[in-house]
Each structure stands twice: as C-alpha cells, then as structure tokens.
C-alpha cells in the first residue's frame, strides 16, 4: 500500500492516463531528432554525390547538416514552445471543469502535493523522450560520420538550451492556467506572456525609429536580457543571423573556437530561461494554492490581472494602430504636432473599442462594454503620453550624452566604405561584417572628445532629420557607448563637415580607433594564408605586383605608417597616391585594399624595395591614351571621349585624383563623380590583377573644355540604369 501511494508510482499512473499526449510528444521529438538527423545526412550525401564533392567536403557537409538539425542554428525551438504550451495547459486543464475540480480537490492530497504531481509529470513527459531521442540522434550522427567534437559540444549545449526554452514556456503556461478559468483564455494568457515583451520592443523600435533622429534600428536586435522564451529565442536567432559571419562565415567550417564563442554568447540567455522557469514555477504554485475552486469555467479569475491585461491590450492595440497610421503616412511630417494630435484621436478610438471588447469577453456579456471605463481612460492617456514623449522627445533621447565617469569606452563606425575585409585574429571565419568587427575591437578611451563629437553629430542629425534635401552635409556614423555597467548605448550621428578637426583627430588618430578600423592590426588570417595571395599596387593607371610571401614585411610597414600618420586631417584632406590590394592567386578575387598616402614612408619604401612603386597619377608621363566618361545633362546621356595628345593628357592629369574608397572621412563633395577617367599606359598589367581605385576629378576642378568635347565629339556609352556598362 505504501508503495502504491508513492509519488513516482502516482507519476507513472498519471503518465499512463495521459498516454495520448505522451505519444504525441514522442512523435514530435522522433520527427525532429533522429528522423531529421538521418534524412538530412542522407540528403546531404546525395547532393554531395551529385556535385562530385570529395570525401572531406562530404564529411564537412554532413557535420554542417547535423549542426543545422541538432546544434545551435536550428529552427525548431518554436516547435518546442508549442509543445510546452500544449503540455502545460493540458496538465492543469482539469481546473477549468467543475466536475474535475470536485473529483481532484476532494482527493486526500494537499494542493501542493497535487501541483507537484501534475507539474513534474509535464516535465517528465518531455524530458525523458527528449534525452533518449537526442542521445539516439547523436549516436546516429556518429555512426553516419557526421559528428566532430566541437559540434557534439554545440549539440549538447543546444539540448540544454532547448530544455531551458521548454521549461520556461511550460512554467508560463501553467501560470497562465492558474490565472484563468478556461482553455481559450489560458492560451491567450500564454500568448500574452510570450509576446508582450516582443510587442513592446517592436513598438518602441518603430516609434523610436520614426521620431528619434539618432535611433539605430539594428540596436533593437542587439544582445540584451529578455524574459520571454519565445522572444529570447527569436532575438538570439536574429543576432546569430545578423552576426553570422562572426561565427560561421561563408563556408561550412564549424571549428571549436567558433562553437565555444557562440556558446558563451548564448549562455546568459539560457540561464535566464532556467531562472524564468524556476521563478514562475513557484509563482504558479502560489497561485494554485490561493485559487478558488469555483472559478472553473470563468475567464480571468483575478480582478487585478483583468485590469492590467485589459489596459495593456488596449494600450498596445492603440499604439499598433498609430503605427499603421504612421507607416501609411510614410513621411517625416508624421512628427508634426498636428499629426500627433490626429494620432491621439485614433488611439483614443482604438483604445475604447479594444478595451470594451476585452471587458465584454472577460464578462461574456456585451453589455459590460463600458464597465470600468477608467481603465479605458487610462489606456487613452498612456497612448497619448507615449506619442508625445516620442514626438517631442521628452526623455531627451536625441540629446543624450552619458556622463564620462559612467563610460568605459566608445566605438565610432562610419557608415561609408564597405570595401575592407575584416577577419578575426583567431581565424574563426574568412570574413566578418564590418559593424560586428569594429564593435568588437574598437575601444576609444578619449571619452571627452567622443562627447564633443556626439554633441555635434546628434545636433546635426536632429536638424536634418526632417529635411528632404539630398545634399550631403556630413558623415553618417554609428556611436556606441560601452558603459561600465555592461550596457551598450547606440546612437546614429550625422557628423557635420564643419566639425572641429582637432577633436576628430583626437579620436580618429587614436590607437583605439586605428587598431579596429584597419584590419591589418588583426590579420592573423592573412599571415596564415599569405601563400594564397599576391600583393598588387596601383596608382590608378598601372598595376605592379609581388608575391604574398612579402605580406609580413608589407603589413609591418603599413601598420607603422598608420600609427605615425593616420588621423582625421589626413583622411579628410589628402588624396591618396596609390592603393595596395591583396588578391587571391586561385580565384583572382580582390580580398583587401589599403590606401597609400604621400606620407606613408615605410610603405613607399617597401614598394620601392620590391620594385612596385609607381608615380602618383598627376606625375605619370607614359600615358598613351586617356578616356573621360561623363554624364551630359543637356542631352541626358553618358558619353566618353578619348585624348591622345600628350599635352592635353598632362593637363587633364593635373586635376585627376585617385578615389579613396578606403577613406571614410572624405567628403562626398570632394570628387566630381559625374566624370571618370581611364588611363592607358604602355606598361603591362599583371594577369589577374584587380584594383578598387578609380580616377576622378576634384570637385570644381573639371577642365572647362572637357564638357564641350564630350558634347561635341563624345561617343554614347552603354548604361544600365545609372551605371556605365564597361
């Protein structure tokens, strides 16, 4: 008898009674785990056979696929969330029926004992098949040669994370049952818990992006602590996608360091899932112990919960409708006061309707539409306050500059120039996104200078935010304050062209800036693979080359030149004399570009030593032909014209400068991009060379007769849209 009454015997009997749900759970996991593992490996092998991949590549693909199914990158935690909701609600759904309440509550058990019996049953129902099927899947992956140690680590971590997602969602579902009286409202409750944070965040991002000039959209998916397992999973996935190159690059390699890095990134959120699960588990127990049995069949059983949920739903609904209205308007005039008042009227109407509908549903009586109208009034007031706080920036978002004492360091990322290739020094990947790389490696410690730049940039951003002008008057940049308390504060800046150059020099010329901006300070990847590359030098007309084995020597020289010379004044005011490019031997692709300035003595010495040096374009004398292409407004077409007269060529070259794609601090107005210059000399260009350099005229320095020549003698140039087809 004692044995029959034991907790685990009761658990087993309860599990047997809930056999249908248990079988459903097993079925879902069977499909997601071992079945999916086998199917993806088989499919991968078929694709590899059809593509005639070798054994190494085939194994690589298998490992990649196994990681997709069982490891960190998979998509099916959403299904686990669904499973947790179903099991969580089903476990305690008897509370919704008066007959079942009479049945269970009259049994000789305390509520606490009954709670743990049902709660743990829902955990066991998932965990046991989950562990078994995960182990089987790992075994199958191993037997089918689709596993490496690092991917195994990822899989084990992911299993833990999946359980965390399940645990948190399951607890929230149980808590939702405790707060409600029927299954539909319980489902709505879980949906509320899982989504409300995401909805708040989304609405905040949309409002901030519309009203705050300095708001950056990508900051909305930055890493932060999130309570909802659904939102947490989605946000982690979005972050992994956005920063995919940090971890996985463009190929299928999944090396150990990369996996460990990802695990470190995901660990805090995983801990949060477990914390949520535990805390809510006890809250749900408390709610059950306080629950009145007669609430079976009602809607939301606690009046404060009704009030709060009604308020939040009507408030968010009003904000959502205002958002739709803003998107429909689709221009910056939405920020005007008149428009804000109009939005408040819309919000009021929506709040009244939603609030009334929610109350009617709670009471199951349409006549209760206007009951507790003060809740509706509160929703209206909140919506209006929200719109005016954003519209008038009452929280000072656009003018916020943190105190220096609270800042650890800062990051400044210019929006221009995407041509440099960033790789991690550990060789985690071929390439990283510029944004992610600089954010990781830049540490500007001159906070005072950054504050001045922030003030100027934010002010200019505010002034131009509502302007329709196309004219460029500054540099768009992103500023990230890394605070001492761990927070990251992002702001969009529009640094004006007339900013104090000395302040910019302090930042742009600093070690903290240069070491992150120039990937040459973190070039372990290139060092390791230099045999695969050639080094090219171009002055815009010709190209010279040397073997990539010289990379170390070049890199040392260039780093020294950057440390000694590079600052804002150089980058802004000077035009380069040439450009060094790193290109692949096998595929002739351009991998990296480095601008060379007149003052880069070490780099120029390297070039001279290796017979690579070429005179700057305005000093070149062996041009055989020069072609100018330009857009003629009067006739509305692109034309080009050739010059072969040496004197004319010399005159034209005096005003010709090399583009500085790698200089993010050049003004858009420094070049006249309506005209481009192509130069031919009698020097042979190396096979497979490429250069990012182009030749243009300085703005305002286009020779007067060029236009006349183009109109008079110019040949029509084939274009595709606004682009010349070469």
């Amino acid at each position: 008898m004692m044995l029959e009454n034991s907790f685990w015997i009761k658990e087993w009997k309860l599990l047997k009674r809930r056999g249908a749900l248990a079988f459903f759970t097993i079925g879902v996991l069977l499909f997601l785990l071992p079945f999916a593992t086998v199917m993806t490996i088989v499919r991968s092998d078929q694709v590899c056979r059809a593509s005639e991949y070798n054994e190494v590549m085939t194994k690589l693909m298998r490992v990649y696929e196994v990681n997709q199914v069982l490891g960190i990158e998979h998509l099916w935690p959403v299904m686990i969330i669904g499973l947790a909701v179903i099991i969580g609600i089903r476990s305690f759904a008897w509370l919704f029926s008066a007959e079942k309440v009479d049945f269970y509550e009259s049994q000789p058990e305390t509520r606490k004992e009954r709670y743990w019996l049902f709660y743990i049953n829902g955990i066991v129902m998932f965990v046991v098949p989950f562990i078994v099927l995960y182990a089987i899947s790992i075994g199958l992956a191993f037997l089918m040669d689709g596993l490496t140690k690092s991917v195994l680590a990822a899989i084990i971590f992911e299993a833990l994370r999946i359980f965390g997602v399940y645990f948190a969602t399951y607890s929230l579902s149980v808590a939702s049952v405790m707060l409600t009286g029927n299954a539909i409202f319980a489902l709505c409750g879980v949906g509320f818990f899982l989504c409300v944070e995401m909805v708040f965040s989304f609405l905040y991002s949309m409002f901030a992006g519309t009203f705050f000039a300095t708001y950056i959209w990508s900051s909305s998916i930055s890493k932060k602590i999130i309570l909802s397992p659904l939102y947490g999973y989605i946000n982690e996935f979005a972050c992994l996608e956005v920063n995919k190159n940090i971890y996985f690059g463009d190929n299928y390699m999944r090396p150990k360091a990369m996996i460990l890095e990802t695990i470190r990134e995901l660990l805090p959120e995983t801990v949060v899932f477990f914390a949520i699960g535990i805390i809510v588990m006890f809250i749900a127990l408390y709610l059950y112990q306080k629950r009145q049995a007669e609430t079976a069949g009602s809607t939301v059983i606690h009046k404060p919960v009704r009030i709060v949920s009604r308020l939040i739903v009507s408030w968010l609904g009003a904000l959502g409708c205002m958002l739709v209205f803003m998107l429909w308007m689709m221009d910056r005039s939405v920020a005007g006061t008149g428009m804000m008042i109009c939005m408040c009227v819309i919000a009021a109407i929506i709040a009244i309707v939603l609030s009334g509908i929610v109350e009617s549903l709670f009471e199951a009586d349409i006549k209760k539409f206007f009951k507790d109208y003060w809740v509706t009034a509160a929703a209206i007031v909140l919506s209006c306050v929200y719109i005016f706080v954003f519209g008038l920036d009452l929280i000072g978002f656009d003018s916020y500059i943190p105190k220096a004492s609270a800042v650890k360091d800062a990051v400044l990322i210019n929006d221009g120039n995407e041509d440099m290739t960033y790789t991690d020094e550990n060789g985690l990947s071929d390439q990283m996104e510029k944004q992610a790389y600089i954010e990781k490696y830049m540490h500007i410690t001159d906070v005072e200078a950054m504050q001045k730049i922030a003030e100027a940039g934010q002010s200019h951003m505010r002034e131009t935010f509502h302007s329709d002008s196309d004219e460029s008057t500054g540099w768009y940049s992103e500023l990230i304050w890394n605070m001492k308390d761990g927070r990251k504060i992002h702001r969009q800046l529009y640094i004006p062209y007339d900013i104090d150059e000395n302040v910019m020099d302090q930042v742009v010329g600093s070690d903290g800036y240069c070491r992150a901006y120039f990937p040459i300070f973190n070039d372990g990847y290139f060092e390791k693979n230099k045999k695969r590359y050639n080094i090219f030098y171009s002055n815009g007309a010709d190209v010279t080359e040397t073997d990539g084995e010289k990379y170390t020597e070049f890199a040392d020289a260039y780093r020294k030149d950057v440390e000694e010379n590079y600052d804002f004044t150089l980058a802004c005011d000077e035009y380069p004399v040439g450009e060094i490019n790193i290109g692949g031997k096998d595929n002739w692709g351009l991998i990296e570009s480095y601008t060379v300035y007149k003052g880069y003595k070490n780099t120029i010495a390297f070039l001279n030593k290796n017979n690579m040096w070429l005179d700057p374009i305005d000093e070149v004398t062996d041009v055989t032909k020069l072609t100018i292409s330009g857009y003629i407004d009067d006739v509305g077409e692109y034309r080009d014209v050739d010059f072969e007269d040496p004197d004319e060529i010399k005159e034209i070259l005096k005003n010709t400068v090399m583009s500085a794609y790698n200089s993010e601090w050049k003004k858009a107005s420094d070049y006249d991009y309506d005209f481009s210059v192509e130069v031919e000399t009698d020097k042979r260009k190396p096979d497979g060379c490429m250069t990012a350099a182009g030749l243009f005229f300085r703005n305002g320095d286009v020779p007067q007769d060029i236009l006349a020549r183009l109109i008079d003698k110019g040949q029509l140039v084939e274009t595709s849209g606004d682009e010349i087809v070469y």
Partner: protein
Amino acid sequence: MIRTENLVKTFDGVKAVNDITITLKDGEIFGLTGTNGAGKTTLLRILAGVLRQDSGAVIIDDEPVFDNRKVKEKLFFVPSDLYFFPNSSPKDMEEYYATEYKNFNKERFEKLVEDFGLGMKRRIQTYSKGMKRQLAIIIGLSAGTKYLFLDETFDGLDPVMRQAVKSLIAENMSDYGLTPVIASHNLREIEDLCDHVGLLHEGGILLSEDVYDMKSEIRKLQCVFPTDEEQRKAEKILSVLNCKAEGRLRTYTVRGTEENIQESLKEIETVYAEILPLTLEEIFISETEAAGYDVRKLILD
C-alpha cells in the same frame, strides 16, 4: 464529528452559505435538504474540502478540512456531476482510488461491481447515468473512509437500486462505522434514511434537528371552532406556522409536541380537533413558507 461554525461562502456578491453553524455526529446519517439554490451543494463541497469558505470554520475530528490531507483521507465525496477518466473501466478507477485511499477495499469493490452487474472491464462511457451513479456510490462505499458525502445520490436510480443503496449504506454504517451526509431534494428518501436533517434556505439553515424530534415537534392540527373568537384565541395561543381554511375546517401546522398542543387545546373550545403527524415534505413546505418561500405564490403569479 463534523462541525461548522458561522460558515459563510459568497459567489459574486450572493451569499450561497450564510452563517451556518451545525454539528454532525458520528454514526448518524445527516440529510441536507432545501429549496433550489439553498446552498446544499455548496455546503457539501465546503465540507469535502473542495471549496474554501470565506469565513467561519469547518472542523472534522478537531481539524480544519481545507487542504488537509489527513482529514481528507477520512472522507469521500460523491458529487452530483460525476467524473471518470476518459476510456476508463471500473478496474482502472479501482487502481486509481487504491493509490489515493489507503484503506480502499478492492475485494469489496469488485464484489459490489459484479453484484450490481456493472462489469469490471466495461468502459464507463458506455454506462447509463444511473449506472455511473451506482459505480460512484460503490467506489465511495469501498474507499474505507469514515465519512461519505453524497450529493443528489438517488437521482437517476431506479426504486430497486435505491433500496439496494440504502441497504449498503446501512451495512457500511454498522460494519465499518461510516457516517454518511446526504444532500437531496428527495424528502421521502431523506425521511426514510436519515437520522438528522438540515433544512437550508437561501444559504441559511432554517432548522437542524433529529428527524424524530422534528416530526414530534411540529404537528398538523385540524380544527373546527364554534366561533371566530375561539379561532382567534387558538391562533394566539398556538405556535402556528401556517393555516389552510376549507369552509369552517382549519388545518394548522403547529410547532410543539402532541402533549403541548393538547394542553393548549384545553383552553380553547372546539367543535372538532385532531392532531396528526406531518411528513418531512409537509414540514419542509411549512418551514420554508414561514421563511417567505411561498410555492403557491409562485404558481399563482
């Protein structure tokens, strides 16, 4: 012993149980009856520990009931709306209850199930309403508890089954010391079975007495008076609950023992007077009419 002290339970502003204080002694059958919505089921659910009272106390064997495992091991509740596990058979329910109730008597249960022709392995969902009720009662009688709470027990049972159930209850009382508490509209059954009756009306207890005492303390008196004056005198002296007139014949429901009434009659001149016993139904109607629940008014209006 079961005791309630100033028990109150409110649903949405309506007092379903209004300040009830009663005592149920061990070894007696307590019958709970009353008008519709009187609070019988609510009271029973509170006694069974299903509902938590808003105020007051429910004490069973000197311990509060709600959320008390030790007390609940002593009681079994058979509600009016029954629940069995989906696709289950009596065998499955036996397995379940054997884990919940330490003293569950499997042999007795199986014997009763067979005796009632229910079939141990037959799916309960194929049973009629009456058969389900029989099964629920059998489970309750086999649970081996000290108290058995039965809500609307005899609904759906045919007369033969009713007799069988009554016999079983009596047998359990004598053999196992069971104390049943039965809530029912069926006053005939309560009158036959119960030792003590509680009459509920609008959440409150109108009376709670031994059946014998109740019947002996309220009588029907049929009289014919020679004059109106004698009639008025009689109505003053006697504790009249209600009165029906058919010509000169007056039929009174009078509170008091036969002896007391006869004593009172000595002071009054009557042409004809006869003291008759009341059925429980007549007592019920009289008491509730006195409390303002007039059935005739409902019919006529």
